[in-house]
């Protein structure tokens, strides 16, 4: 087959188009705190999201370290079981809703307008509002820890009736904070959809968009589809707790299993909400550092869409042990296995992109390569979990913990870190310190694998998840996991130092900071001025489609 031309585009290098005529029509922004409270600039809001997410990442990380410290050796040493349960629950909630999701929204805020040549998000004031909802939501959520009876202690999946009839009194506040965080996500999604569909540079068609934009568009649709379902579920919980209904209470004719169906109808697409934008980031970075166009751009888009559609058809694979009828078990087993196909296509495409490229190993590429390998490992364990009879043994053990941490930590989180390293020169005008970033990378990789790899074995050997103390045969695995967790946690401090250093100074970056980078964001100066693309850029797809 004859090689075809790439589906992406050399970009106008003249910075005059991009930055031309800024400042003149913009009043001076208010100073100090008010500036950040009132900002409607997508770049500033993007930075706010990222800083918020980093803060939450450390808070959630501290909770994880409390858990790992207690599990360092058998016996109850540091915390009592009630507090342990609150820590596992809060760790999950904060990492999912407070760290990973806002980080992706932050990246979208920064990069989507730059990648499609838009001057800002479509709804800047809504953008400001949806950000400031988050600190409110999470302050509320964290404050439940100080309430009588403690914070949520029923796992991030908050299965009824443990989270309704048997829940601590603070649960109503937990529901409220989830509602606020949910509204924030929904507003963010509306904004992103409106931006992508309406503010693309003239001449840029959907199939010309960078994959990060594509994956975020699909993610935003997923958010629109499932966040209302989450809102519905927690509203039903609220009614059950405070108004005497019995949606999930068997005593009143309700059904606890219904909760799980509704939750996972939200929860499984939620999993993809946390991974699709990661695919987009990696699909931008790998071609850049392979100096070769992305292999199979169209099939990447199709695969993302297939994954999104399939994500609505697999929810009950989280519930194989609740006593589903045989037909349902088979249906969900088959659909779950089908997801492996588009996911596999993505991995193959990334590898084909590297094949016969000209590969260099800058920090963003290192994190992306680690993403590909370790996300694939998470995918393998996911395939094993899909086999329903085997899942009877894996379900609710550390094998599952290992699986989803492989997908979310060296998966989603590494992709976010890769994106940050990739775009830091654009944000700050400086390259991140090379040696430090390499140290950060290697320590993170070792830490992550030391933490999560042994969990496969402890799970297979029979250790259930969410237990504060364990039988002696699991001691070695847990020791390794705890050491790894502390190593990983500590190495993230390096990251903070590195980012601060990079903001303050460092090697200057040109507009096109990476040699192989092709998308529109590299046509504006580094650091990107506050206002870009006030006049739409000339988008010149070099292929005549």
């Amino acid at each position: 087959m004859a090689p075809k031309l790439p589906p992406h585009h050399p970009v106008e290098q003249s910075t005059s188009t991009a930055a031309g005529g800024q400042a003149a029509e913009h009043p001076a922004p208010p100073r100090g705190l008010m500036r950040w409270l009132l900002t409607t600039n997508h770049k500033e809001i993007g930075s706010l999201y990222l800083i918020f997410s980093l803060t939450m990442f450390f808070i959630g990380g501290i909770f994880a370290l409390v858990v790992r410290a207690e599990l360092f050796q058998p016996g109850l040493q540091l915390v009592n079981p009630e507090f342990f349960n609150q820590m596992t629950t809060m760790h999950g909630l904060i990492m999912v809703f407070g760290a990973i999701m806002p980080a992706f929204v932050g990246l979208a805020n920064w990069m989507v307008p730059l990648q499609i040549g838009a001057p800002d998000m479509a709804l800047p004031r809504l953008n400001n509002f949806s950000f400031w909802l988050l600190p409110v939501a999470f302050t509320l959520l964290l404050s439940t820890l100080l309430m009588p009876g403690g914070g949520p202690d029923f796992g991030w999946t908050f299965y009824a009736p443990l989270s309704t009839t048997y829940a601590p009194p603070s649960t109503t506040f937990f529901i409220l904070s989830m509602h606020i965080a949910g509204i924030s996500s929904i507003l963010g999604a509306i904004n992103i959809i409106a931006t992508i569909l309406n503010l693309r540079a003239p001449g840029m068609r959907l199939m010309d968009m960078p994959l990060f934009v594509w994956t975020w568009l699909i993610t935003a649709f997923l958010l629109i589809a499932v966040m209302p379902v989450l809102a519905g579920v927690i509203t039903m919980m609220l009614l059950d707790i405070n108004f005497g209904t019995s949606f999930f209470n068997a005593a009143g004719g309700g059904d606890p299993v219904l909760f799980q169906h509704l939750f996972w109808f939200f929860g499984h697409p939620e999993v993809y909400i946390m991974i699709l934008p990661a695919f987009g980031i990696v699909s931008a970075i790998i071609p850049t550092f392979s100096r070769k166009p992305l292999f199979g751009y169209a099939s990447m888009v199709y695969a993302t869409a297939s994954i999104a559609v399939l994500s609505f058809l697999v929810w009950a694979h989280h519930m194989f042990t609740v006593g589903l009828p045989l037909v349902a078990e088979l249906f969900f087993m088959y659909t779950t296995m089908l997801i492996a196909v588009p996911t596999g296509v993505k991995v193959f495409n990334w590898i084909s992109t590297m094949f016969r490229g000209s590969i260099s190993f800058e920090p963003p590429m290192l994190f992306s390569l680690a993403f590909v390998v370790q996300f694939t490992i998470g995918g393998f364990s996911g395939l094993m979990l899909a086999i329903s009879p085997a899942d009877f043994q894996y379900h609710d053990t550390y094998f599952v913990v290992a699986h989803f941490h492989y997908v979310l930590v060296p998966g989603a989180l590494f992709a976010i870190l890769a994106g940050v390293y990739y775009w830091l020169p654009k944000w700050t005008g400086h390259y991140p310190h090379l040696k430090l970033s390499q140290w950060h990378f290697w320590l993170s990789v070792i830490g992550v694998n030391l933490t999560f790899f042994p969990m496969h074995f402890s799970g297979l050997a029979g250790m259930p998840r969410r237990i504060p103390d364990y039988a002696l045969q699991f001691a070695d695995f847990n020791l390794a996991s705890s050491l790894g967790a502390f190593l990983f946690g500590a190495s993230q401090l390096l990251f903070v130092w590195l980012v601060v250093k990079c903001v303050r100074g460092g090697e200057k970056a040109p507009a096109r900071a990476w040699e192989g980078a092709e998308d529109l964001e590299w046509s504006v100066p580094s650091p990107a001025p506050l206002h870009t693309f006030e006049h739409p850029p000339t988008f010149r797809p070099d292929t005549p489609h």
Partner: protein
Amino acid sequence: MRESRTTDSPADRGVRRTVRRTLVALAGMFAFAFALVPLYDVFCQVTGLNGKVDTSGQALVHEEVDESRMVTVQFVTRGSAGLPWNLEVETRQMRVHPGQSAEVYFAFHNSGATGSWARAVPSVSPSNANRHLRKVTCFCFDEQHLEAGERLELPLVFQLGRDLPPEVNTVTLVYTLYPVTRDEAPLQSRATAGKGDEA
């Protein structure tokens, strides 16, 4: 800044249209979440998922009794916290032919010092027998009230369909007694409205 512009560019119109559409989709999905509650009940009744049973009586179907097959039907009764009641069944198990109707009595007894309301929540195992179990009369369709010390016997009349899957030889009916706080009752029926209001 965009919003403060007075000009009505095509992009602005597009944004407004997109926002309108996503808001409609949002409202639809929120409603859908609540619609899933009754839908789930229908789904359960069709598939027998979770041993959910009809909460209203079904008509006896007159069909030929399958003399060649015997099925064991077990009855299990359970209490729950907060209710000083006993529920006992006259026989723990009986053997019936598919197509045959049978009657069994359950004795309720309130050993508490005050009158109270309760409901027996039914469950059937295995779940694929559920579709073929027809309850003609059951105390589980209604909430029951017993005065302090009162004793009450209520019947269950049921029939196993002839089309009961051949591998099912034992059917277990479990009844769990739950207390009902009477002033909650209207709300409860609202929550379960999707499957035909009982009583």
